[in-house]
């Protein structure tokens, strides 16, 4: 049997470690965002959410599985390609009836996502300890 005191100490240690870790991450976010925020990209992100694009598409492999990962679609295909899909839709993807401005905002968001890194698994190398790193 473990005494109540021992259990409380173990739980308190874990909770303290968790909260310290949490607030460390909040305080020192992994990427130091630039002071000037791209407004179009911010609007594009909200439009991405408003149309629930993530249910079919992935960003960094996270999201739905029906459509392709769009992390680096901007650099691979360009804005005209994205715009044509947004305008006409596909057999699976509905037409979202977006305005010209809304399409520009979504493209600005995808451009920002593209600039943040690459999601291609081939771009990683595997270390001896099983960890992965970008080549």
């Amino acid at each position: 049997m473990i005494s109540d005191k021992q259990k409380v100490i173990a739980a308190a240690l874990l909770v303290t470690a968790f909260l310290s870790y949490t607030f460390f991450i909040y305080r020192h976010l992994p990427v130091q965002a630039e002071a000037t925020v791209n407004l179009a990209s911010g609007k594009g992100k909200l439009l991405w959410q408003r149309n629930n694009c993530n249910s079919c598409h992935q960003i960094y492999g996270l999201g739905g599985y029906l459509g392709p990962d769009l992390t680096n679609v901007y650099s691979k295909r360009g804005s005209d390609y994205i715009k044509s899909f947004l305008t006409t839709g596909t057999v699976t993807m509905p037409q979202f009836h977006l305005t010209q401005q809304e399409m520009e905002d979504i493209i600005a968001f995808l451009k920002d996502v593209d600039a943040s890194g690459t999601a291609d698994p081939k771009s990683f190398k595997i270390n001896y300890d099983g960890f992965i790193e970008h080549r």
Partner: protein
Amino acid sequence: MTDLLSTAKTRSGSAAFLRMALVLLAAGMIFGLLGAFQYIQAGFLKEYLSFERVRPLHVSSVVFWIIMAACGSVLYYLQEFTGKSLYSGILLRLQYFLFSFSIIAILISYVFGIFRGREYWEFHPALAIPVATAWILFLINVFKSLPSFRNLPVYVWMWLTGVSFFLFTFLESYLWLIPYFRQNIINDMTIQWKSYGSMVGSWNMLVYGCSIYLLDKISGNKEYGVSKTGFAIYFLGLFNLMFNWGHHIYTLPTANYIKYISYIVSMTELILLFRMIWQWRASLDTARKHFYRLPYRLLIAADVWVLLTLMLSIAMSIPAINIYTHGTHVTVGHTMGATIGINSFLLFAFLFDILGKKIAESPVALRWFSLAYWSANISLFVFWITLIGAGVQKAVWQMSLQSSAFSTMMAGLRPYFIVFFISGLGIFAALLIWIVLLFKHGKIRREAIEGQFR
């Protein structure tokens, strides 16, 4: 007598959560089948209920099935444990009303294509307010219903942990509303998956806590609940809940220390795996002894799924393997194994214990139960293997230097999607049989509950 009546009322109240949960599960499975069919028949119902609406309808229905059933089970077992009614019947009813209102509003908003949130919580953030409020009421009711905090068994610790951490992680998942957190996509996704990873661990604490309680109740052996092993495993689970979430984001260009911590912490789950394998023989002997009990049969099935899911999850937590499985259907297979094979089977074990005592008395109902039991397990195994197969094929495509177009790759996965849909139908039929059995035979009678206290 007043106390007995109040107990009967709050127990019936907690059973109402379970009945609502069953309705959500049925709805979630129908949406799931519709979504699976849209993989085979591209554009099916696109004009009325396209995939971006069907997926959240499915996911939210089944997530709320788990949450409602877990809450109902905790509230019910808590009363069995204390031998008293809940702290407040009013809080219980308010929680039920707030949950029901928000869930119905969320599902209706999805049907109309109203999304303002993010993956898994796609609904308007305003609807998170009643959900969080309901959870706070739940938290108060659980904490205040305990007469003392001394010498509590491990399952009560797990309930208290799950209740507290769910609230924390749910609120954390809304930090994106603050521009500081959302203005950079990498930061935003890091915090998003930090909260989601721990949130799943939180509801698992509620579900696993109930399973330990039920196991103690069936076996009549109360030793595990207060044993050193029980608490050691609980603290190991808590440690993983807090720190292993980073395995979801190995490929995200976020801070490396987050990934290293998660990798190391996730590997501690090997202890659980070795323990399960070590104790397998003893578990089998106990299983043979209690197999005639319906809830126990479900606990056994969940145990097998824990083993399979744990092996897959540990493998996926190794970055060198995760790089192949990430973004493929292997991840979906893992999620389905965990939510159906573990969470849902355990929740059904509680439901059959709480609502389905009469079923064992009817030979016809028993035959239906057994048919559904084997169908659910076989169908889920086919479902699981199919998803892993589709995932491996997608992984090969992702890693090939001269990869074909995405649409060509998806066309190649079509045979998997067909088997996936058919096995999904098998799971649907099996779980529907259990739902019908529980509704038909599972009425809680106030007199029966009062009788337990005489």
